[in-house]
């Protein structure tokens, strides 16, 4: 369920966007904002963890962070490298076993938001983190696999996805459906007996896509400052639908940006010294 190569990609994507803000920072700030009003979040490692911790550091100080390693209510002071960093347990309200986490807490339907990364997403916000085809005669490229994602997406009240925008990531057809988002359209989640409403937003470094309530197909609803609709359509592997009025996301506030950069600096420092 995680972004496998967070560190490397962050470095690559660090070119400044508008106002000295990188496109990754726009993604992360908007991903954090998407948690407004949520009480509990099942947090994937990598970008989702950055977003959830930023939300805690800014507008949702009481957000309960839940990591699949068994921690409930973690309050890390730095971004964890792995989902089982010691600080996640030491600062938690409760630590439970992994089976208890998946059965009582996730499957029990108690968690507001499942926040996931993805390698490939399709127009119905289904996710592939398993294998990617490299064409005829070549072996499939192996991704990490499902992790907790299929059941996180099925059992949380809603799902947020965060990943960088590219034609490699936003594909017309998944090579493998690891995690069902909206299936093949409206009604599919109900047909499969899934609890939550499914993916409510896909936050990228270019903007935000949301499912059309009527068709469940992802629609571009917001772009980040300085990003055009055409840029987003170019970076999407299918003919991306666009909302009648696409708005621009508010630029990061100084507080958001400072909090995000402090979290990341603490994470780097923590990783070097530990």
């Amino acid at each position: 369920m995680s972004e496998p190569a967070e560190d490397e990609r962050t470095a690559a994507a660090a070119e400044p966007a508008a106002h000295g803000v990188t496109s990754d920072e726009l993604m992360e700030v908007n991903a954090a904002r998407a948690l407004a009003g949520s009480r509990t979040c099942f947090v994937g490692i990598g970008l989702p963890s950055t977003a959830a911790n930023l939300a805690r550091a800014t507008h949702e100080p009481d957000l309960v962070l839940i990591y699949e390693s068994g921690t409930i209510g973690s309050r890390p002071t730095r971004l964890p490298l792995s989902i089982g960093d010691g600080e996640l347990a030491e600062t938690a309200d409760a630590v439970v076993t992994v089976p208890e986490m998946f059965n009582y807490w996730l499957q029990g339907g108690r968690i507001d938001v499942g926040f996931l990364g993805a390698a490939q997403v399709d127009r119905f916000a289904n996710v592939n983190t398993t294998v990617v085809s490299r064409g005829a005669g070549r072996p499939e490229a192996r991704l990490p696999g499902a992790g907790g994602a299929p059941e996180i997406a099925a059992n949380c009240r809603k799902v947020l996805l965060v990943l960088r925008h590219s034609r490699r990531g936003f594909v017309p057809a998944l090579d493998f459906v690891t995690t069902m988002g909206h299936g093949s359209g409206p009604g599919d989640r109900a047909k499969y007996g899934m609890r939550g409403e499914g993916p409510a937003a896909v936050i990228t470094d270019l903007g935000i896509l949301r499912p059309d309530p009527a068709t469940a197909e992802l629609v571009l609803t917001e772009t980040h400052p300085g990003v055009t609709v055409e840029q987003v359509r170019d970076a999407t592997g299918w003919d991306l639908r666009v909302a009648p009025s696409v708005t621009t996301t508010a630029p990061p506030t100084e507080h958001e940006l400072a909090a995000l950069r402090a979290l990341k600096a603490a994470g780097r420092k923590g990783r070097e010294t530990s």
Partner: protein
Amino acid sequence: MAGVRSLHDAVADLVHDGDTVALEGFTHLIPFAAAHEIIRQGITDLTLARMTPDVIYDQLIGAGLVRKLIFSWGGNPGVGSLHRFRDAVENGWPRPLELDEHSHAGMANRYVAGASGLPFATLRGYRGSDLATRTDTVSTVTCPFTGEELAAVRALTPDVAIVHAQRADRAGNVQMWGLTGVQKEAVLASKRALVTVEEVVDALEPRPGAVVLPHWVLDAVSVVPGGAHPSYATGYSERDNAFYRAWDAIARDREAFTAWLDTEVKAAGATGTAEVSR
């Protein structure tokens, strides 16, 4: 009945060619030293089970000892791919690797079923996913009360479980704390169990969050301080994140990996200095 034994003897006795082995630990308390002992002894044709294969299985796979992997997430957390795992899956190097692939919820419940003496477990899982099409250990079961169809996963009952813990007492009772993951389930689901510990103490003082495994469900305890490195043991060590990042370059290249394995595992073990055991 657990006795405190040398890691060499415990591994030699309990782990055999062709076994299904679960070396568990969710980021925390991963039993690296025991895996290295398996590599030194060349125990092979293994089926390895683990929710998060991690660098420990990258090493065993790269060493050519693994025939099949049962897992749910195979990456180097926060860093990237497990290159030896990918090389085995994608290119069959050093040998092909068969996969039995699940979700975390499914894997956790497979261990729960094993620990509970049940042939399967039920969960709300795998719905709408292609995962079930690539494994014969996911099926369905119908609730006899509501008629609802749910996922069923086959119990996982490894031949051997190996875990690392903080402490044991002289009777061989084991105590672990911090993130305890799915280790109790893995131990109880397995036919045999080996625990490496940081130290042996006279009495296991109760601790917050501690899990105790009684000696009579274990087959051997070996004292291996630092036996989880580069993973960590809460109260004894911190996660060596630098090693995890450095692993990416080592594992990316077959020759670099092979050289690392020779010097850091095989040679180190031969001199007996890498892990102090008794």
